[in-house]
């Protein structure tokens, strides 16, 4: 049962991903991205990281996907037209991606057994969101990344507003 669900979410993530990189119509590609991200959220649930699954849906599907669709609408002209969405070097890109995947497979299979069954992992904390909150705000753990995240967001917003704002003559 778990395997079936795993395969379902994997297929969603990978098929969505393939559609993202091959669809010519960009809004459709963005929808495929949503599908793929939803599959990844499902994988998080299987990994017992429910918090991250919800965050994935909230941030990626609720915010970033919408931002991307808005940006597609703002840069319209490329989307129509007969030309393919891929550039001239797509053959080489395919080769390098496949080679890369083969390398990954080699390394992974070397390092960890693919065999099913008898897999065990330590238990997750009973309330992992609370544990996450404690770890994030603990003086000796991740409080610096936590604060830097807000500075990063501030600078991203300042930068993006400066870049995207239209210059008003007058």
């Amino acid at each position, binding site marked *: 049962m778990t395997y079936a669900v795993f395969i379902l979410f994997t297929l969603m993530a*990978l098929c969505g991903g393939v559609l993202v990189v091959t669809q010519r119509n960009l809004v459709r590609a963005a929808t495929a991205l949503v599908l793929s991200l939803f599959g990844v959220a499902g994988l998080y649930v299987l990994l017992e990281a429910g918090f*991250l699954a919800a965050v994935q849906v909230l941030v990626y599907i609720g915010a970033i996907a919408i931002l991307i669709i808005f940006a597609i609408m703002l840069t319209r002209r490329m989307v129509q037209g007969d030309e393919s969405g891929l550039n001239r070097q797509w053959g080489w890109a395919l080769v390098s991606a496949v080679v890369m995947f083969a390398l990954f497979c080699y390394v992974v299979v070397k390092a960890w057994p693919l065999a099913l069954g008898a897999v065990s992992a330590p238990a997750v904390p009973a309330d*992992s969101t609370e544990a996450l909150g404690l770890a994030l705000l603990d003086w000796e753990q991740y409080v610096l990344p936590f604060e830097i995240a807000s500075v990063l967001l501030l600078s991203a917003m300042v930068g993006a507003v400066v870049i995207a704002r239209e210059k008003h003559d007058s």
Partner: protein
Amino acid sequence: MIPLSWYVLVSAALFCIGLFGVLARRNAVAILMAVELMLNAVNVNLVAFWRYGEPQAMAGQVFALIVFTVAAAEAAVGLALFIAIYRSRDTVAVEEIDLMKG
């Protein structure tokens, strides 16, 4: 439970799809979407290793959260750049915005 290696393989496949997209797409926004795929592959890895490594320490989840933050910041600034480029050059095809090539 599903072995760790399966998750790592899924993540590798997702990463390579994203890599292909980054190398092969013409549209800058599409390239950004492919980058998001790659970031997601990284996140799957982080969470999988958190789960099978040391779930009591929340390092994997904290890292994943930071990756989310970076992804959002990158999308916001990147898309703003594309919009600005589109406004002045009227295109977001990456071959046509290589001004720096001299």
